[in-house]
């Protein structure tokens, strides 16, 4: 049996509680609060205690999807990334960089937010970057 306990930060609200994800044979089986976290000091709320339940849910998106005709169908990463890159280039060239807009995510990491705004500003050339801070 492969068992590990991984200290991380809760994905729900802005409190940022420290919690352990308890992993058995590649499956997250439960959440435990971190006692040393200055934020939650060994406690969690009902969402935090269940923060592992959605991770390996069968509804997760697991393959890239592309719209062909009316419907979305599974595609390879290579094909999907190629389509996104060529469409962004096409729209930028046809209508200018400010015709492209980006929403970054209050759900993603700092590193990912940094990278998406850098991509928008440096690679595409627009400041059309926002996220749901106001929502």
């Amino acid at each position, binding site marked *: 049996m492969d068992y590990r306990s991984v200290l991380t930060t809760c994905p729900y609200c802005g409190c940022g509680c420290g919690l352990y994800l308890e992993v058995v044979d590649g499956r997250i089986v439960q959440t435990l609060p971190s006692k040393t976290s200055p*934020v939650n000091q060994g406690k969690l709320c009902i969402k935090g205690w269940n923060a592992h339940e959605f991770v390996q*849910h069968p509804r997760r998106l697991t393959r890239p999807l592309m719209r062909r005709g009316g419907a979305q169908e599974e595609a390879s990463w290579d094909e999907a*990334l190629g389509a996104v890159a060529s469409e*962004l280039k096409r729209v930028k060239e046809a209508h200018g960089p400010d015709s492209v*807009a980006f929403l970054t*995510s209050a759900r993603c990491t700092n590193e990912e*937010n940094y990278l998406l705004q850098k991509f928008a*500003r440096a690679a595409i050339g627009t400041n*059309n970057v926002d996220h749901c801070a106001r929502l």
Partner: protein
Amino acid sequence: MTNSIEELADADCIFITGSNTTVAHPLVATRLYKAKAKGAKILVADPRQIQMALFADVYVRQRLGSDVALLNGMMHVIVKNGWHNRQFIEERTEGFEEFLKVIEQFPPERASELSDVAVDDIVRMAEYYAKAKNGSIVYCMGITQHTTGVDNVKTLANLAMLCGHIGRPSTGVNPLRGQNNVQGACDMGGLPNVYPGYQAVTVPEIKEKFEKAWNAKLSPNLGLTIMEMMYGIEEGKVKAMVILGENPLVSDPDVEHVRHALQQLEFLCVIDIFPTPTTELAHVVLPAASYAEKEGTFSNSERRVQRVRKAIDPVGDARPDWQIIQDLSNRVGYPMNYGSPEDIFEEIRQVTPSYAGITYERIEGEGLCWPCPTTDHPGTPYLHKDRFARGKGLFHAIDYRPPAETPDQDYPFWLTTGRSYVHYHTGTMTRVSPHLEREMPEVLLEMHPDDAAAYGVQDGDVVRVTSRRGTVTTKVQVTDRIGKGVLFMPFHFAESAANVLTNTALDPVCKIPEYKVCAVKVEKAA
């Protein structure tokens, strides 16, 4: 937050407004209970009698959108009684005289008329807060999601400065951030007007600095906010969008309008972990790794930068967002070559002065609160210690403005929206979590018993709620938690989305939509 979470436990007066703290920020709420147990006065102003109101020394139910009037009334009382902190005002602030002129127009009787809060309660709240040794203000979206959102926040800042309750431990103006990393997304420049570290895109020297760091020509133009993007699509200016981990078709006001806009895009790419109403509209959907499947950092409400660690491999063929963005960038001809999230973080430190002293090694344990300018800096638990970021604290003279939409003959009810204790935002994660969904599997509209009686509605009956934007069907919960003539609905439920009803009217400065106030009518469903 200007101060850190733990400091709240040592405040001797806490004024909570527009924050349902026990529901939306339970671990902040534990500090409010601790403070109460130590004898702190708890003041709550909220249109709903939330759980914290049951523990409050003073609870008031203000009319929706009347916050400026209520707060100005409190400040009028404070000044008239000489309870303000003259030394703090003299040494650390400016603009007081202009501010006084407006405050003079808000005797408690007028504030009471506008806010529907009793004069006695206004006076008691003013006295408790002003006379406290360390008074803290805690607020959330109930303050910001208004066409007067900026006015509301500035008015709270006025109140804190008036009493000198800022720049010391256990004081301050403390907005609670709703999303796990909304603080970080802002810090990292996920905004149309600033680069990472709130450095303005419109300042030429700053633009040059980033052009050098990123080896690219950057745009001098301000970008569009979310709502402006939606209007931009309809005006034919915005043709393509990339949406990372957001679900505007449930979270944005007037979602039918958002759907109409997104459908007109020539190209839409959505990167997410679950299928959502928004991914359904996309030309390409890319499956992302969840928080448990990647490394990185989140920044919480108190500006504490903490580690996110990988527990399992990404499910299926999902990939971490940073790899997806890097691949896209390489394909459009702007090379990126990061080996890990830590590599990216090292670059963030170079261009973001407030993060410069933070390293993965230093945040192995408890994390660090920014500003943290150097690697020997201990981090900053509370801001504005000896001076404000701009030098002197500026009083803003702010008059009361009513909400954009108020009840009338055709739409006689006020509607306000918010969160429940088990569900999270648009529900994509919590509603597939069995233990959470079991607690609250469907939306409930809160309605006052008198209104329910007048409409012949009982607990559990189904009603149609209609605003000028659209109609939803929902079950009713009859409760006096909400005031007479006011309805409350959580917005987590895509199948009867509260945001079909909400108003897109924006704050003129920060462009936040007025989720917290609109007018609706109710009919009993057949």
